[in-house]
Every structure is written in structure tokens, then in C-alpha cells.
């Protein structure tokens, strides 16, 4: 229903934003900056999955999008918890 050309433009936009995210992930000064970039990268992968679902007209991919966003959230929570624990340990030893 959505034209192929629009989908292609959308995918190009997403790939540019993923490259920007990867740049921030590489040069990020601290671990927290890299974590934010990874978080956003997971979300962009979910958006790209929606684009694939539209292009292939396969509705089952939308389930994958739902589950993937849930797992990305849990990953972010785990990483934030890990970073906080690391910070607490370093502040205790000082």
C-alpha cells in the first residue's frame, strides 16, 4: 500500500541515523554515552523491522517488533543498573 520508493527513502534515513548512532557509540567519552547510543540503536533496529514488515507485507514481523522493544528495554535497565553499581563501588573505595 505504501509505495516502494517511499519505503526506500525511509530506509535510507534510518541507515543514516544508525551510522550517526554508531559514530557516537565509537567516540562516546564515557560508558554512559555509549549506553545511550546502544539504546537508541536498538530502537532504530525495531523501526527498521517495521519497515521490513511493510515491505514484505508480513504481519508476523510486528510481533517481533513488540518483543524486541521489550527486550531492548530490559537490556537498558540491566546496563543502567550495572553502571550504577560500578559507580557505587568506586565511590565506596574512595
Amino acid at each position: 500500500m505504501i509505495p516502494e520508493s517511499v519505503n526506500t527513502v525511509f530506509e535510507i534515513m534510518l541507515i543514516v541515523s544508525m551510522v550517526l548512532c554508531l559514530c557516537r557509540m565509537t567516540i562516546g567519552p564515557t560508558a554512559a554515552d555509549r549506553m545511550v547510543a546502544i539504546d537508541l540503536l536498538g530502537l532504530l533496529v525495531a523501526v527498521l523491522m517495521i519497515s521490513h514488515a511493510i515491505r514484505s507485507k508480513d504481519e508476523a514481523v510486528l510481533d517481533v517488533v513488540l518483543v524486541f522493544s521489550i527486550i531492548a528495554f530490559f537490556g537498558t535497565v540491566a546496563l543502567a543498573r550495572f553502571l550504577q553499581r560500578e559507580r557505587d563501588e568506586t565511590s565506596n573505595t574512595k
Partner: protein
Amino acid sequence: MMSYVASFFLLVGGFFSLIAALGVFRFPDFYARIHAATKASTFGLGFTALAAALSFGTVSAWMKMIAAIAFLFITLPIAAHLLGRSVKDKR
């Protein structure tokens, strides 16, 4: 007519995703980066999910995408809060 609306929503979603990535890449401060990564990307996935639901047009696709949007609106602020708290007092 509906395909124009769906294409418009898809492009708006891509635009917001691009803005989120640009903000994460360009902003100078960590908290500004969190702001860009969570707020703009909420609308990025939201508009894209809306475009997918309009494109499929079935009830199950609408339900899945509404669930995804609702879940996103609940969890992304929580993730941003946890990320911000994990670096608080560090700098």
C-alpha cells in the same frame, strides 16, 4: 488516499528517528543526549507504527502497534530516568 496518509506518517517517523540520532551525535552534554535519544525516538517509532497499522489495516495489526506504542510511552521515560540516575553525582 489512505496510502498518502500512511506514507506521510512513515516519512515523519523516519524524520524523527533521524533527529534523534542527530541529537545523540551532535549534543555536547550527556543529559542533552538522553533527551534527544528518548523523546524524539518515541515519536519516531510511534509514527512508524501508526504508518504500519494504516498500511496493513487489519485489526490485529492495529492492536499490535497500539500495544507497541503504549509500551514505548511507558518504558522509554523509565529507561531515561534510570540512565540519568546512573550517572548522577558522577561529574
